[in-house]
């Protein structure tokens, strides 16, 4: 038999949602539930093994072909880009990219260059480029909501789910940038060399989302 199809899952919620899909297909995912310290986990009932990784690393592994496929959020894809096939919108892990400012602030007014804080500098840059606005971007690693409160930035570009965190900090969404959900991505060569297997799996996944 061929070596197992290796799939990288983004640790955390996307991992759980993907495992739920696999279980609906009928695969045995007990190795993922009882993973302990193991990092490469065989899936029962299928020629598949799963690797758990941070979102950015999922893309790196798939791009290099050391994993054949991966499950990663559209947010990471938009930030990292790279070369791989984005085959399926898995529909879970839904949220959105948005631009938020302090409530009532006139973000688009005046001629001063605005400063944007974001964990996603590429997404922020591309968005402002697309609307023809020149801004300064500051990369922040932790709670981005803090930046406008501390007056480091005029606005933030971040993932918004319910908007509760924004509201609690006196911020509000002023522009929607893009919807986000989990995606099934595939290495460009794996899709060609293992076409049948991957197409069959994609069919099963689509039927069980």
């Amino acid at each position, binding site marked *: 038999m061929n070596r197992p199809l290796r799939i990288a899952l983004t640790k955390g919620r996307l991992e759980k949602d993907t495992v739920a899909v696999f279980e609906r297909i009928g695969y045995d995912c007990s190795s993922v539930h009882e993973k302990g310290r193991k990092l490469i986990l065989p899936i029962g009932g299928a020629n598949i093994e799963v690797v758990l990784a941070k979102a950015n690393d999922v893309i*790196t592994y798939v*791009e*290099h*072909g*050391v994993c054949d496929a991966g499950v990663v959020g559209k947010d990471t894809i938009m930030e990292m880009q*790279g*070369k*791989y*096939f*984005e*085959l*399926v*919108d898995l529909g879970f892990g839904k949220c959105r990219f948005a631009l938020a400012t302090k409530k009532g602030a006139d973000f688009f007014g005046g001629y001063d260059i605005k400063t944007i804080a974001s964990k996603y500098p590429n997404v922020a840059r591309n968005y402002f480029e697309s609307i023809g606005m020149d801004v300064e971007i500051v990369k922040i690693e932790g709670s981005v909501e803090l930046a406008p409160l501390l007056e480091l930035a005029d606005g933030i570009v971040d993932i918004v789910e319910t908007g509760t965190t924004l509201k609690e900090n006196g911020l509000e969404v002023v522009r929607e940038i893009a919807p986000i959900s989990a*995606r099934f991505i*595939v*290495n*460009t*060569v*794996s*899709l*060609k*060399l293992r*076409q049948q297997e991957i197409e069959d799996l994609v069919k099963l996944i689509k039927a069980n989302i």
Partner: protein
Amino acid sequence: MRTYELITPEGTKDVLFDECLARRDVENRYRKIFGGMGYSEVITPGIEFYDVFNDGSRKYSQEALYKLTDAKGRLITLRPDCTIPIARLAATRLRDVPMPLRLFYVQTVYENNKLLKGRSDEIVQSGIELIGSEYKRADFEVMSIAVKALKEYEGTDFRLEIGDVGYFKELVSMLGVSEGVAEDIRYLIEAKNYPALNDLLDSIGDTPVTEALKKLPALFGGVEVFDKAAKLASNDKTREILDNLKAFYTSLQKLDLGDRLSVDLGIVNRTDYYTGIVFKGYLSGVGEAVLQGGRYNRLLSEFGMNAPATGFAVNVNLVAALVRKLGLSPVQTAPEAVVYGEHGYCIEAISYTMELAEKGIAAENAVFDSFEETVAAAEKRGIKEIYVVSDNVKKLEYKDGEYRE
């Protein structure tokens, strides 16, 4: 100030011993294949004017190019591609040579990659260009040589994939959208991004053409692809392209490729001088295409000479890394013998080493100043024989923990 004198620039590395042997082994094998088919090796400059890569169908993104300036302040770039300089060369210095031209090359290209992505900025490419024939015979020749190169190493598994850039261009032209939208569609098909492609095409409308474009990223695989494509929107040109591609597919099967030959109608590269049939080669175990090629009938005309052409390039780094991993390339071994010259016989020892080398014995001249040091070093490296040169030559062999006559 921080200095960078102990490391090499990001994306480059020193290539040593086994890795170097593997690289050269791949290069030499390809040289033999290409030379054997009547191709002549050429070397183009490592640096070229920026303009060569920034006009017509040769648009490279600024970020991808290494740039510097020459003494006159003109913008120079490290060569990012070998086909374009060869087209320049053919259209200038070789313009009066009878066609067809068969050229090959083994040289580095440079690509300014994003930092810390684990990608090489310095890549050895080896490839061929067949210039001056518009006929299928030329494509057959180039593709057959591509197959030969792909299966050069026994123990590797390959795949050759063919497509035609014209198919997508025709479909999109039937759609009648702006260049910007066409580029968005192209990008999404290249990324096989079905979700976004479907959204975009739905917003354009529900026509047989949008239906066909939606299916395009999935139109890859074996001969069944042609049947699927035949059911989609078409015009005279797309039918001609599909017939032509199917003819290629059928003919190439004479090379006994079986399912190693496949079709992808969703090959839609951008920065690209290709005008018709294109192909990619894959090796099992390598995460990206190792070979890329196709027909480029207008590139030479951009340099002032109307000549059709076809060719391909192989990424030697990727192939060398794979065959080394699989243990298919030569490895460095310790020499069989060391030659030690007694005091006063240094030159004689060197001459004797050369004599051994001519006989095909891998020997090394000892540069230690005493016999004891020579023995210690030879033992450490597992060298079996020591020749001691004075008025005569004594041969010592390693047995039971010491070197004896």
